[in-house]
């Protein structure tokens, strides 16, 4: 790492004079703030996949603008005081014990900013938590009758059950997926979720072992998968052909880093075809396994209870 070494060496050289070191600090700080602006997501979270992610993004931006004003104001006051009131320039300290109107003023000022933030948050909240209707060109779906699950006003949506387990996500497609998907032969997949565009996707999130957290940044905020609980979220992607990356956000064990998720967005027609093919594949493989098991039982190397 010659680059890192030379940085350290120049730091040490600069360190011979604390003031020069301060200049290095300012330059480095400037680099940190301005250089990576070209890189994505330096100041704002990911978005662009789904309306809830976009609305969180715009809420975040409002907070960011207000924060920037506060940051510049307070750090500016601090810097001004440090430069202006050094003993060399300002030898006599004025003996001020306080200023009640000023103190009450800045307390109210701080509170006022927070009141604005509260109002903005609750105004934006419905657009983040309420699922919108599927578009007209969405896939044909069954009406959802769940009382707990968030559903769009028209009731037209696609339910996908997400189950976290060490260290992979399993997705079961279609209504009733959290009940008896095995007997109803619902299609399922692991790690990569395939979804139709223009359709509101309701996710029903569960865990079968430890706590995980479902998170695909471009498709909205994260939701914990807690064993014993069912949590919900939704997303709706306008364009087919996208692939979104996400991964488990809650420490779940040694391979937590590899518990990734991919969401592949296809057109409704492609989705219908994929579901059929996936269901067929699963059925065929189940049939093969059944044959193999029967053959093993006939050989006598496996009992009908499944014991070798």
């Amino acid at each position: 790492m010659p680059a890192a070494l030379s940085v350290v060496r120049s730091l040490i050289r600069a360190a011979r004079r604390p003031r020069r070191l301060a200049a290095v600090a300012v330059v480095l700080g400037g680099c940190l703030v301005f250089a990576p602006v070209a890189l994505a997501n330096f100041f704002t979270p990911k978005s662009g996949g789904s309306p809830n992610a976009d609305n969180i993004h715009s809420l975040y931006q409002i907070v960011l603008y207000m924060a920037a004003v506060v940051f510049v104001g307070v750090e500016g006051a601090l810097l001004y005081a440090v430069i202006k009131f050094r003993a060399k320039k300002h030898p006599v300290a004025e003996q001020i014990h306080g200023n009640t109107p000023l103190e009450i003023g800045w307390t109210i000022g701080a509170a006022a900013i927070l009141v604005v933030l509260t109002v903005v948050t609750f105004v934006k909240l419905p657009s983040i938590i309420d699922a919108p209707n599927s578009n007209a060109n969405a896939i044909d779906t069954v009406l959802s009758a769940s009382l707990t699950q968030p559903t769009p006003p028209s009731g037209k949506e696609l339910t996908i059950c997400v189950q976290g387990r060490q260290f992979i996500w399993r997705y079961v497609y279609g209504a009733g997926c959290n009940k008896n998907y095995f007997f109803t032969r619902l299609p399922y997949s692991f790690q990569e979720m395939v979804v139709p565009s223009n359709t509101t996707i309701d996710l029903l999130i569960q865990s079968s072992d430890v706590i995980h957290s479902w998170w695909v940044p471009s498709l909205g905020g994260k939701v914990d998968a807690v064993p014993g609980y069912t949590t919900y979220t939704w997303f709706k992607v306008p364009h087919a052909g996208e692939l979104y990356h996400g991964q488990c956000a809650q420490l779940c064990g040694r391979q937590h880093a590899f518990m990734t998720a991919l969401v592949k967005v296809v057109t409704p027609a492609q989705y219908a075809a994929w579901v059929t093919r996936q269901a067929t594949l699963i059925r065929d493989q189940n049939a093969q396994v059944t044959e193999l098991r029967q053959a093993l039982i006939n050989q006598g190397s496996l009992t009908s209870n499944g014991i070798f």
Partner: protein
Amino acid sequence: MATTDYALRPVPQVLAHEVHKPRETRKWIDWVTTTDHKKIGIMYLVLTFVFFMLGGVEALLMRSQLAVPNNTLITGEHYNELLTLHGTTMIFLFVVPVMAGFGNYFVPLMIGARDMAFPRLNALSFWLLLTGGIVFYATLFWHPPEAGWWSYPPLSSIQYSPSGGQDAWIFLIHLTGISSLLGAINFYVTIVNMRAPGMSWGRIPLFIWTILIYAVLLIIALPVVAAAVTMLLTDRHFGTHWFDPTDHGSPVLWENLFWFFGHPEVYIMILPGFGIISEVIPVFSRKPVFGYKAIAAATIVIAFLATLVWAHHLFTAPLPIVVLGFFMLSSFLIGIPTGVKIFNWIATMWRGSLMMTTSMYWAIGFIAIFIIGGITGIFLAVFPVDWQLNDTYFVVAHFHYVLMGGAVFTVMAGIYYWYPKMTGRLLNERLGKISFWVTFIGFNATFFVQHALGLSGMPRRIYTYQPGLGWSTYNLISSIGSYILGFGILLSVANFATAYKRGKIAGPDPWKANTLEWFTTSPPPQNNFDTIPRVRSVEPMRDIRREIEIQTGVRQKTGGAEQFAPDREQLVRT
């Protein structure tokens, strides 16, 4: 009367001397058997700095692993062990007890007492802390715990964490918990009962206010975590199912119990640091603190609200929106008194005459860093925004700005300020300032980019990542920064070590400070004070200096402050 006694003396003569010569014995026995709050305080500070170094090495190992994508330096298992060791060490073995170290040394001195209320209990606190640290670090030779410092079940249950490391972690929480609880009771009783004559509640130093509130918060919060880890222990070994979802238990119960302790813990760690800053800033601004009552009141309000914000750690957990809304508002509210403190510190410096000592550098550096940590805290309190930021590197950046700024920078300010009192020698100011700038640059290089990492979608606690996700550059900057940061801290540690024997003699009051600890010799004798002056304001030492100046007509020369004083010519050299 003591009050008139000192006033008749020509210079602020130190009214203390050794009451008896220490027994001629082996020195370490004196340390091991001591009940003197000053010796215990120093042992606390040294021990916690050892743990700080260990925690720092763990952090550097993690940063080394994350410097480049697909790194194979450390396995997932060891990485999880490291993050658990790092978090637990820094919180339970460094920040909380280091504040107890300062409290031990300076609470009796600052309130004009001769020791803590319960000196032997005080020694017990220290030895329990050491035992907790040994129990925890002994797991290095077997299996360190790997479920993170908040140890969420079921991951921390016997099924998913079968090793004894998790039990050692539980034992550590109990031992350090009892240590802190005993210490807290001791601080509370000492501050309430043993103050100098005239030191009413409106005249106790702001550091004492924060230690008092620190003690109250510890007494409120620690029993809850003690109960929670006991429930975890019985879940693991005695067949209960408090947190077992397969048998009517709930992991969310643990989350609530743990964070009901965990969030007050944040303020337990930070309030004494605020107290140190509230002492350092006025002394080196040569001005009274701006709005004493507001700062003291803000401390109390923060403590009250600190018990009402825990669920902002659970914004992504299964909780109803109304709960999320409540905890967003309470978290907003706690921002107000915290902001008030920052405004008051800046106002204290405003139109003052700033002595740019190393201690002042660290204090101002703390304010600059803490402002960023406080502002990012507001982002996290907005719960829909937190759904994106929770459990990412944005949070890691936030709490390092708050805690490393709020604890490490304030601890450094405190050591540079009080080291002359504790050892009788001045630290090297120049080396201290270099250490400050290197640490400050390293700190920001390490943690500022971590905001961007979180915003680009990197979750915390992953031991490696793939290239092409937009994380590699930020991670490399952060890792390089962490080494600069570590080097900066080492410079200060070297400073502390060399100045112990070689530093310039400090004298009793090198900074022309305001509080009573500067009224005695450096280091103070075993009984602290022979005579305790009557306190007439928040700044008793200032009153004493002024009174002598009025009586003698001679400007007071103090031990070492001349080197920073602008009015050098006005000083009369006697």
